[in-house]
């Protein structure tokens, strides 16, 4: 498994990926694996009233990854390439603050797929939690 930000030829990045780049409509043809990077917490919350199959409390964060260097290699001709990309996800601990440095850690099952409203086969349930460095 990888934790891919998706990149179009114009140097626009998004996590998750989309059929066409939300910024310019080009195909997203390249990826940057965020699992190898350290990010910074933009904001966080402890969610206590969680749906069936989700841990409680569920500490969540929006994390920003610096991709300025990586994107220059991928889209060298881009006029204004994105310099960062954000992702969202669970945090490994309840002890987190804005500005903390975090690393992605792989988890096989982020919530119990069998007890929520969604058809379990309709999507993936593994992914990455953020672990404070």
């Amino acid at each position: 498994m990888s934790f891919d930000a998706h990149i179009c030829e114009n140097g626009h990045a998004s996590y998750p990926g989309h059929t066409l780049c939300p910024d310019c409509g080009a195909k997203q043809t390249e990826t940057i694996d965020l699992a190898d990077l350290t990010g910074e917490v933009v904001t966080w919350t402890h969610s206590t009233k969680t749906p069936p199959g989700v841990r409680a409390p569920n500490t969540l964060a929006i994390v920003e990854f610096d991709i300025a260097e990586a994107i220059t290699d991928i889209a060298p001709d881009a006029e204004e390439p994105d310099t960062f990309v954000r992702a969202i996800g669970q945090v490994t601990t309840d002890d987190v603050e804005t500005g903390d440095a975090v690393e992605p850690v792989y988890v096989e099952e982020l919530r119990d797929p069998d007890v929520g409203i969604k058809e379990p086969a309709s999507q993936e349930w593994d992914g990455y939690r953020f672990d404070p460095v």
Partner: protein
Amino acid sequence: MTVAVIGASMTKFGERDAWIQELIAQAGEAALDDAGIEPADVEHLYVSNMSSGEFQGQTGIMNALAHDLGVMPAYSERVDQTSSSGGAGIYEAWQSIASGASDMTLLVGGEKMTHLSTAESTDIIASITHPAEYKHGLTLPSFAGLTARHYLERFDAPRDSLAKVAVKNHKNGVDNPHAQFRKEIDEETALESPLVADPLRLYDFCPITDGSAGLVFTTEERAKEITDDYAVISGIAGATDTHVVHERDDPTVMGGVVDSSDMAYEMADLGPEDIDVAELHDMFTILEFLQMEGCGFAEQGEAWKQVEDGRTEMDGELPVNTSGGLKSKGHPLGASGVAQGYEIYKQLVGEAGSRQVEADTALACNVGGFGNCVITTIMEAR
């Protein structure tokens, strides 16, 4: 063609014994009565509803309502735009009249929710999220917590300012006989209530609600024949923001609010300074700040100051959520946008009772998802 609103209804919001078909029938019948028209007059029927299938297992409710009210063979359609289904219904109804496709349109919004647990309802609503969000257990309240923390930290806004929104809207709701909660609260109660998605607590969130509301639309020419008291839709627009919430450039800006209100102002040839009263989608207290800023009532990062200064109180320069808002009135998903329309219509025709404020021009902003889809409606008295 200018579109007029000639009637409105709202049923009691709260925990109701009635199921979805009965709820929408009650609002539909009451709206026809309020407008003084017959079922046979209705040419288009729209039913705003997010999830009757998921909540109750009943689908096709526009057809059920058409039969229960006897409006056949009117064109009928269910409108789903999640929490902004009601606003989207107003948009559809406006289009039906403005295009000439219909001379008389009935819109009813409704949702039946309270028979499920909070966890189950939260999951149905969270199913609107991207799979990459859903697998982490993201919920709408957790988006609110993430956004509120960022807003408070970035703009150095006091936590108390969010509690003031809850206190204000609960105070307004006391005068609304249809509201789920008709009880004042103080700041201390709000600030000490149980944590839901910190920094937000229980009283920062709207309740889970059953309820319905209705509106009747026609041409201005026909409205003049029917009544002396009507309002016109002078501006209306909808806009869409990203599905994935964290992909927005600025976490404190709801692009759908900015874009839809800009277009609605342009259509009405009005600006934020012309609005006398507003209903904003306060599903969470922080959303009242984001919509005040997105609709141009305040600069970015400064809405909280206006709430602290009392500008948005009933006797303030711009009363916001005279109905009590979703916060005290309740939030039966598909009904909420229609109920916003009910409130501003009643304010404009002078039928808001003890909630009445002086208003010739009113705005309603109905937010779907976490700002994913937004409808802004501007009505003017005639």
